[in-house]
C-alpha cells in the first residue's frame, strides 16, 4: 500500500480557505505545548493574549498602532515577492526611512520656520526616497550583475541597523538628553496627526491612512495596469516573461523603488507618528514579520491589511503576557513561525489530494 499525492483537476477553493484557518489553530496548539512546558496554562494565557490584543478599546488601538508599520512593510515585501524578487531587506529599508524622517526636521530644515504640514510632507518624501535608494542597491546588483538578492538585502539590514545605532548614540545624540541614547525630539516641529478624537483611537496616527491608500494603489497597480501584469507574469514564469519581451532589469529596479519606498514609509510612521525621535526600538523585526504576513495573505495587497492586524494582535498580546504573566514575548514569534509552517504544508492540498494506492507484491 502506498499513499501518493494526486493532482486535482481544479484547485480546491474550499481547502484554500480552510488552510489558513486550520494552520492558525494548529500553530496555537504548538504554542500551547510550549506554554505547558513552560509551566503556564495555555487556555488562560491565550485568553490573556486575546484580551491584551483586542479586549479593550485601548488594546484595540495599540494593536492598530502596531499594525501600521506591519501593513506598510508587508505591502513592500508582497509587491517584490510578486515578481519573485526576494526582498528580505524591508527591515533595513524601514530603518533608512526612519533615519531620513528624523534627519529632515532635526538637521536639514532645522530652524527654518517651515510649517508642520509641509515639513511632514517633506519628511515622508525623504523616507520614501531613502527606503527606495536602499532597495535599489540590491535591485541594481540583481538587475545588472545577477547577484543573489536574498543575501544582499539581508546584509544591508545589518548595515542599516548599525548605522541607526551609531547615529543616535553618536553624532546625532541629544546633548541635553541626560545621557539618554537618542536624538532630540521633533514633536514640536512636526508630528503626524492622530486620528480624530471621536474615533477614540488612542495613538493611532495618519500612518494608517497612508497604509490603506498604499494598499489600494498597489492593488490597482497589480491588477489594473500593464506594468502590474508584467510583474505578475515575471513572478509566475520568468522564462515566459523574457520571451514576451518584458524588460526584467528595468522592472526589478522599479519594483524595488516601490517596495523600498513603502518600507521607508513604515519607518516614517514609526518615527513621525510614535517616537518623534531616533532611539532604541525602531528596528524590532517588523520587516521580517512582514514576510510572514505577505505570504499568509497570498501576496494580495488587501489581504495583507487583514493579516497585518492579526499579527499585530499576536504581538501586542505577546507583550501583554510578558507584562502580566512573565512569559517571554518571543512566544509570539514562535507561533507566527509555526503558522507559516502549517500554511506551507497545507497548501499542497489545494492542488493535490491524498490517494491510497494498493500495490501488489512487496512494497
Amino acid at each position, binding site marked *: 500500500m502506498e499513499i501518493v499525492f494526486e*493532482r486535482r483537476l481544479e484547485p480546491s477553493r474550499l481547502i484554500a480557505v480552510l488552510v489558513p484557518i486550520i494552520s492558525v489553530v494548529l500553530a496555537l496548539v504548538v504554542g500551547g505545548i*510550549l506554554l505547558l512546558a*513552560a*509551566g503556564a496554562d495555555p487556555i488562560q494565557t491565550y485568553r490573556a493574549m486575546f484580551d491584551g490584543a483586542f479586549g479593550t478599546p485601548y488594546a484595540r488601538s495599540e494593536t492598530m498602532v502596531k499594525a501600521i508599520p506591519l501593513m506598510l512593510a508587508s505591502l513592500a515585501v508582497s509587491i517584490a515577492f510578486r515578481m519573485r524578487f*526576494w526582498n*528580505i531587506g524591508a527591515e533595513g529599508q524601514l530603518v533608512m526611512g526612519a533615519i531620513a524622517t528624523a534627519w529632515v526636521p532635526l538637521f536639514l530644515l532645522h530652524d527654518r520656520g517651515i510649517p508642520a504640514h509641509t515639513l511632514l510632507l517633506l519628511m515622508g518624501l525623504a523616507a520614501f526616497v531613502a527606503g527606495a535608494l536602499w532597495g535599489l542597491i540590491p535591485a541594481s*546588483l540583481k538587475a545588472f*550583475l*545577477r*547577484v*543573489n538578492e*536574498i*543575501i*544582499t538585502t*539581508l*546584509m*544591508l539590514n*545589518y*548595515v542599516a541597523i*548599525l*548605522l541607526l*545605532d*551609531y547615529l543616535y548614540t*553618536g553624532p546625532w545624540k541629544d546633548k541635553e538628553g541626560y545621557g539618554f541614547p537618542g536624538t532630540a525630539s521633533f514633536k514640536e516641529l512636526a508630528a503626524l496627526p492622530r486620528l480624530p478624537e471621536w474615533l477614540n483611537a488612542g495613538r493611532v496616527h495618519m500612518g494608517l491612512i497612508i497604509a490603506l491608500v498604499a494598499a489600494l494603489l498597489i492593488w490597482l497597480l497589480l491588477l489594473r495596469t500593464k506594468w502590474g501584469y508584467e510583474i505578475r507574469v515575471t513572478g509566475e514564469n520568468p522564462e515566459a516573461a523574457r520571451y514576451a519581451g518584458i524588460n526584467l532589469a528595468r522592472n526589478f529596479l522599479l519594483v524595488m523603488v516601490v517596495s523600498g519606498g513603502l518600507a521607508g514609509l513604515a519607518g516614517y510612521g514609526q518615527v513621525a507618528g510614535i517616537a518623534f525621535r531616533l532611539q532604541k526600538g525602531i528596528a524590532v523585526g517588523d520587516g*521580517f*514579520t512582514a*514576510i*510572514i504576513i505577505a*505570504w499568509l495573505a497570498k501576496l494580495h495587497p488587501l489581504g495583507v491589511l487583514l493579516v497585518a492586524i492579526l499579527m499585530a494582535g499576536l504581538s501586542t498580546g505577546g507583550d501583554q503576557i510578558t507584562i502580566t504573566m512573565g512569559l*517571554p514575548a*518571543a*512566544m*509570539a*514569534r*514562535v507561533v*507566527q*513561525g*509555526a503558522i*507559516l*509552517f502549517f500554511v*506551507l*504544508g497545507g*497548501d*499542497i492540498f489545494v492542488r493535490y489530494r491524498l490517494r491510497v494506492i494498493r500495490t501488489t507484491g512487496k512494497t
Partner: protein
Amino acid sequence: MDLALLVSILTVTIQAGTSLVFATIGEILTERSGILNLGLEGIMIMGAVTAFAGAYHSGSLLVGLLIAVLVGLLLASIHAVLTITFRADQVVSGLALTLFGSGLASFLGQRLGPGGKPLVGEVGPKFTKTAVPLLSEIPYLGEALFKQDPMVYGMYLLVPLVAYYLYKTRPGLHLRAVGENPATADAMGIHVARTRYLYTLLGGVLIALGGAHLSLAYTPGWTENLTGGRGWIAIALVIFATWDPWRAVAGAILFGGVNAIQFRLQAAGTTLPAAFLGMLPYLFTIVVLVIITWWEAFRKRVGAPAALGIPYVREERG
C-alpha cells in the same frame, strides 16, 4: 609586520571561522542535493542555545553537542518534510524556519537557566584549547593551527572527508546527480526524495554544530542574537565557494579574518567608530558576492546545482 601579531590574528581567524565552516559545509551538502535551506540562521541559533543549555545542566560538553545534533535533525526535518514531501516553496520555508528558530531560541534562552530563569550570563562548561603534541611545536603555524579547541580539529577532519565523499565515492556521485538532474538520477535508480531527505538532515546537523561552536567555544555562554547573522553569511559563503568544500574553508578564513581584524582594530583604539567596524563583515559579504557572481558570469559558468530549489515530482517532470 610583527610575526607574533600575525600568529594571533590567524588564531582568532580560525576560531571565528570554525562555526562558518561547519554551517557552510552543511549547507553545501543540502544544496548539492537540490534543496535550498535558508533556515541556517534559525538552526544555528537553536544549536547554540540548546548546546549550551545541555552542557550547562549536564556538566558535559558531549551531551551539549548531542542535543545540538538532535535539534539540528529536528529543525532540518521540518524543512525537509515541507519542501520535499509537501513541495512547499523552499525560500519561504527556509525563512519560516529562521523566524521560528530565532523566536524559539530566544524563548528557550529565557527559560532554560537555573530554575526556569534566563540563561544569559550563566557560565557553563566550555571547550578549552588543547595543543596537539608535536604539530603544535611547528614554529608560528603550529601555535595558530594546533593550539585550538577540539571542534576546530573536528573541522580539520570534516573538510577533507566531505570533499573526498563528494568527489570520489559512489554515494557522493549520487548526491551530485540528484542535485544536477533528478530525472536522470531517478532513471539510474537513485531514490531522489530519500537522498534529499538524507542530506537536508545531515546539513541540519552540521549547521547546528556550527551554532554549538559559538556557545561552547568561541564566545562561551548564551546571549540574545548570539549568531548575529552568521547563518546568512554562511549562505553567501556557499555561493562564494561555488558549492566546493575546500573553497568554503578559504571563504570562512577570509570572513574569520575580517572578524579578527575588526577586533584587532577595536583593541588598538582606532578612530573608526565601532559601528563601522561592525558593518565590515556584512559589507564584505556583499562585495565578495558581487565579485564572485561577476567572475562566474565572466567565465560563463554557474556553480549552482542545476536543480537547486526545484521540487522533483516524478509524474510531472518536464
